[in-house]
Every structure is written in structure tokens, then in C-alpha cells.
């Protein structure tokens, strides 16, 4: 199944401001199904970094961006559970390390964050 045809080429090729908060790509068309906030150009750069990848459709890039957002939310929440046990109100790096060790789904991160 090829990527769904779309008249517009990939957007966000222009300045994806590093420092400033980038604008959301597009207005939300349906409540609850918020479109990605991560700039697709950056996600695309990551995808292209893989030498085994030939091409990636626009939809795939979008889904990856959205998945990365969900991942950030998930890992932040899991790390927060650890911080809560220490009754702290600031998430520290060690909370993240604990979450990575405790949660099986985060095993792929071991050894990659240093």
C-alpha cells in the first residue's frame, strides 16, 4: 500500500526553529485527534539517517512524529511516578533512569542516553 496520494509535498522543509517554539503544523481538524507538534522535517531527518531506508511516505513521517509525542508523554509520566515516590516536585535524570530500568518497553533505551 503506497502512501496515500497527496498534492502537497512535505511541508516544514523551511526553517524549523531550534530555539523558538515552532508553530503547530496545521489546525486540528477534529477535537481529540490533535495533529503532531513535532516538526516533520526533523522527524524526516531521523528517518533518513537510517541507511536501510529508501523512502518514507508523508503519512509514515507524520505517524512517527505523533508516536514520538506519545512516547514523550508516556516516559515523562512513568518517570514522574518515580519522582513522586521521592516526594519531589522536579523530575530528575535519575527518575528517568529508574523508569527505563523498570519498564520493559523502555529496554531499547538502555545504553543510548549517555
Amino acid at each position, binding site marked *: 500500500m503506497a502512501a496515500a496520494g497527496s498534492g502537497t509535498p512535505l511541508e516544514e522543509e523551511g526553517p524549523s526553529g*531550534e530555539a523558538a517554539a515552532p508553530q503547530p503544523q496545521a489546525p486540528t481538524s477534529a477535537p481529540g485527534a490533535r495533529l503532531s507538534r513535532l516538526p516533520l522535517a526533523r522527524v524526516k531527518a531521523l528517518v533518513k539517517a537510517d541507511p536501510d531506508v529508501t523512502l518514507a511516505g508523508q503519512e509514515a513521517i507524520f505517524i512517527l512524529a505523533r508516536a514520538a509525542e506519545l512516547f514523550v*508523554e508516556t516516559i515523562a509520566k512513568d518517570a514522574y511516578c518515580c519522582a513522586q515516590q521521592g516526594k519531589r516536585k522536579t523530575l530528575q535524570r535519575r527518575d528517568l533512569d529508574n523508569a527505563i530500568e523498570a519498564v520493559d518497553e523502555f529496554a531499547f533505551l538502555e545504553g543510548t542516553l549517555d
Partner: protein
Amino acid sequence: GRRGAGRKPVWIRLWRRGKSGRRGGLRKRLETEARASAPSAMAERPEDLNLPNAVITRIIKEALPDGVNISKEARSAISRAASVFVLYATSCANNFAMKGKRKTLNASDVLSAMEEMEFQRFVTPLKEALEAYRREQKGKKEASEQKKKDKDKKTDAEEQDKSRDEDNEEDEERLEEEEQNEEEEVD
């Protein structure tokens, strides 16, 4: 351990490789900076493989209860983790594309990757997001088609537009072209 001893997946290798940079001048600059300031070269790596800090921070803050803060180190580590996540997901998704004898990663490859990576809980929200995205893309396409029609009232132009838009290959080629162009710039 939880992973096979010594077995490092492709995406970890390329993550590390990406961190040190492939261009001579860049590597020199990174090394100088790394020597000057203790933290990992990762912090000085140009934005290519990083996701914007501001957006990551916002996502984290919205996921956590009010009044909860995050240290810079933790935020930075989460950002890196997100990049690694994308690389890992890409690699998994690519396996599915190859199994399907396709050269282009598509949305269902990514969804299959999520399941393989044990992030099934992401699949439903991702499918919803995909539907919204498709509706929006369709809306944009129709809007731009409408603009074209309004601009150019010739019947010939209309017929040309129709056949061009139905041709999915065009989009892939364009993407490929873009990618080739980008390759030239980067390397």
C-alpha cells in the same frame, strides 16, 4: 541482561555515528566543544537528529500535573530518548516494508512497528490521528485544486491537473527528488 549480550541494533550504531558527525570540520568542532565542556558530544550535536527543546518541554509539561518541573538534564535525556525511539521505530517499520517488498515506508508499517515494540497502546490514538491527518490532507488538496481551477479556466489545464493528481507515483518521486536534493546538501 534484557538484551542479547553484545548485540547492538543498527539504529544504535547509527545513533552513535550520527552523534559524532560525518564531516571533518564538524567533528573537529564537536571535539573541541566536548573537551571544553564536560557533557557528552550529544549536547553539541547540531540539530539534525535532535527534536526541538521547546516542543519536547511543552509536551512533557502537558503530560505532567501542574506545578511539576523538570530538570534540564531530564528534559534533555527525554529528548534524546525520543530521537532514539524514532530511529528504532523506523528500523522496525522498515523491516515490515521490506517484508512487503516495498521501498516506501508507509503508515501501516509504522503501526506494525509499534506493536512489535510493545507500544500497542499507541496504536489506537495513532490510527485516529492518521484519519484526521488524511482528512486534512484531502481538504488541502481539494482547496488547492479549487485554486488551480479558479486561476486557470482552460479545460486543458483541468484535465491535466486531474490526471496528475491521481498519479500517486508523482508524490513518491517528488519525495525522492527532495531527498536526493537534501542528500546533496547534507553530504
